């Protein structure tokens, strides 16, 4: 036991001696969480809308004013014809256009039926769909307002309540997502070089003659990183609460416990990579470059998982960050207890066991 403590202490010194890596390890997640917490939003805002008003009557002017007063659009009235729209689209200076034909108001007043045309730049489909949604809402509301008998009988009025997010913070979904993504990648990368570095630098022999069982050697290697990652998580959480104003609605203790488990799962995956590769470069490429994009996609905070073909949904099951994202959402944002997240927790536990076993199996007891 005493020997083991000495061994762990040595590993600690090893890790803490490298001030630069420490600085990077703590600095980067902090900057990222703050940056993305503020910058990423699910809302679509400040869209430049080119308006061509060939009618110039009361109705078209009223509608344009309504659009101007919404926060979604920046109205640009400099274009005069289709060619101008086409040029603006090609230059990327406008994303959508609204065209009132001549006689718009006249048709609306006398025939009760008028047309407008909406053009969108389909190269950004998300924006195009959102614009169409916004404009439809604005036009429908307007049409209802000016229709005779707007105050009709039988009105059903929906009262919308925003659960878990009263302020309508558009970044709320991204914060746990970025937390899961950053923690997973950082923790995996940290331990992915732990063993392979010794192989590369030829210091494996020292490990092999140590009196400990391979499992203990591996754990001793992981302990300093676990401490570091926990400190890192704490820092991220403090930032989320005090800088991004995310309210932790559930139990802090539960949050810490499941986060610790998630970190251990990621460290184990890192050890697995470290024991199955032969160079730091390969290990790092696998743990960072190889995992970054899949993690980003399969965590489910950016692209809804339910839309994906079933094969991808299967793939997403092996991404630890996906389960952790669900856990954090449930505990931190919805204030739910353990009974809601036991399944996800069990999955993370299972992953840890599997990754550690593979790591152990590949931990070379002898020099090749």
């Amino acid at each position, binding site marked *: 036991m005493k020997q083991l403590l000495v061994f762990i202490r040595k590993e600690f010194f090893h890790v803490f001696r490298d001030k*630069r*890596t420490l600085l*990077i390890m703590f600095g980067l997640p902090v900057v990222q969480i703050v940056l993305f917490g503020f*910058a*990423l939003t699910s809302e*679509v805002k400040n869209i*430049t809308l080119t308006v061509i008003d060939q009618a110039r009557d009361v109705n078209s002017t009223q509608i344009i004013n309504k659009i101007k007063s919404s926060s979604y659009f920046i109205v640009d009235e400099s274009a005069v014809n289709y060619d101008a729209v086409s040029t603006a*689209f*090609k*230059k*990327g200076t406008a*994303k959508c256009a609204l065209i009132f034909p001549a006689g718009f108001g006249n048709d*609306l007043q006398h025939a*009760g039926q*008028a*047309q407008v*045309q909406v*053009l969108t730049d*389909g*190269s*950004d*489909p*998300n*924006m*195009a*769909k959102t614009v169409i949604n916004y404009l439809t809402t604005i036009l*429908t509301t*307007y049409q*209802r307002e*000016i*229709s*005779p008998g707007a105050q*009709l*009988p*039988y009105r*059903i*009025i*929906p*009262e*919308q*309540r925003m659960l878990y*997010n*009263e302020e309508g913070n558009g970044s709320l*979904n991204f914060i746990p997502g970025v937390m899961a993504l950053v923690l997973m990648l*950082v923790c995996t*990368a*940290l331990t992915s*070089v732990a063993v392979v570095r010794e192989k590369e630098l030829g210091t494996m022999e020292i490990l092999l003659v140590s009196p400990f069982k391979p499992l203990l050697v591996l754990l001793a290697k992981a302990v300093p990183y676990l401490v570091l990652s926990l400190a890192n998580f704490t820092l991220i959480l403090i930032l989320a609460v005090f800088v991004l104003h995310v309210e932790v609605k559930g139990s802090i203790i539960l949050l810490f416990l499941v986060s610790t488990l998630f970190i251990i799962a990621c460290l184990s995956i890192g050890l697995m990579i470290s024991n199955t590769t032969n160079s*730091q470069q390969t290990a*790092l490429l696998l743990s960072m470059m190889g995992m970054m*994009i899949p993690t*980003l996609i399969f965590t489910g905070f*950016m*692209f*809804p998982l339910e*839309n*994906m*073909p079933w094969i*991808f949904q299967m793939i997403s099951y092996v991404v630890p960050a996906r389960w952790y994202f*669900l856990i954090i959402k449930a505990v931190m944002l919805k204030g739910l207890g353990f009974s809601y997240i036991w399944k996800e927790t069990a999955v993370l536990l299972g992953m840890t066991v599997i990754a550690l076993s593979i790591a152990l199996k590949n931990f070379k007891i002898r020099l090749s």
Partner: protein
Amino acid sequence: MKVLRFILKKEFRQIFRDKTILAMMLVMPTVQLIILPLAMNFDVKHVNLAVVDNDHSTWSQQLINKIGASGYFRIIAAAPSFREALGYIEREQADVVLEIPPGFERNLVRENEQHIGVSVDAINGTKAALGGSYLLTVIADFNQHVRLNEGGKFVPGKGMNIGITYSNWYNPLAEYRFYVVPAVMVLLLTLIAGFLSALNIVREKEMGTIEQINVTPIKKWQFILGKLVPFWVMGLVVFTLALTVERVVYGIWPVGSFALLYLFAAVYLVALLGFGLLVSTYTDSQLQAMFVAFFFVMIFMLMSGLFTAVDSMPGWAQDIAALTPVTHFVKVVRMIVLKGSTFADVQKEFLYLVGFAVVLNSWAIWNYRKTS
């Protein structure tokens, strides 16, 4: 020149000898380019709805049927109480709870007005907003319908109707692959040029082989060029590969000029290699280099308009976005590939990228010390 040719030979050999690196450069991008666009889809297909009907009247039934038939919603459960319906939201099975209060029909007839409760899981903003607006649309429709059918005392006045015709240019069906495929292509180039080059140079430092180069008559610039040129070539190879995959798998063929596309790719790669070199001069282990590169690539990925619109971000974030080469390159690739924009349309971005290439490389070379 002769020296440089030798160095290049050696570097190319090293790349082709290491199967892992080669796979990382060629196989992984191809696989990712084939697979990822299938997975990246922002479409909200349907909103899951849990219904609490406390009225059990003809009208409340009709309203629920209308919502179910609208095509926007999947009614996943009819719960006896709000508390129970909320359970579906807590377990992520429902996005919206619709609550119809007792006396719904009676009040509608007597008072002409009745409120109903719509509770939305607002953590996911997109779904919340869509679910809410779909529901409003359906209810407005239902209001009309109730008036016409049930309201004996109501004579419909002349309504006003604004018809809207839509057209999505360059992508009539608003399909996501047109948006995602160019983005993945740019992302892969970025990873190869920015990540791998940094790692490659730092590796020499960490292994101490840089010392050996220092005692040879090789000049600084020869060493650097020898490191960067192979990656630049590989980058263009991957770019070509990516265009081929786009064509074969996704049927996307650039509308604009190929020469223009390659011109931009060539300049962009130079800028990104400068970035990789810069990272390598500030770090001394592969782990450090990886972390720094990771930090920037994350920013590139999430802030440069690859998957989220830059225009929606706050002003200061847009300023940061303008400071990354990726933002400009992805914009240009989309413009040339999808809209057939010409050089006149993308002049500004070209200047930006040339600027990045010059600044990043000069900075890197200034900071690069041959003596480690």
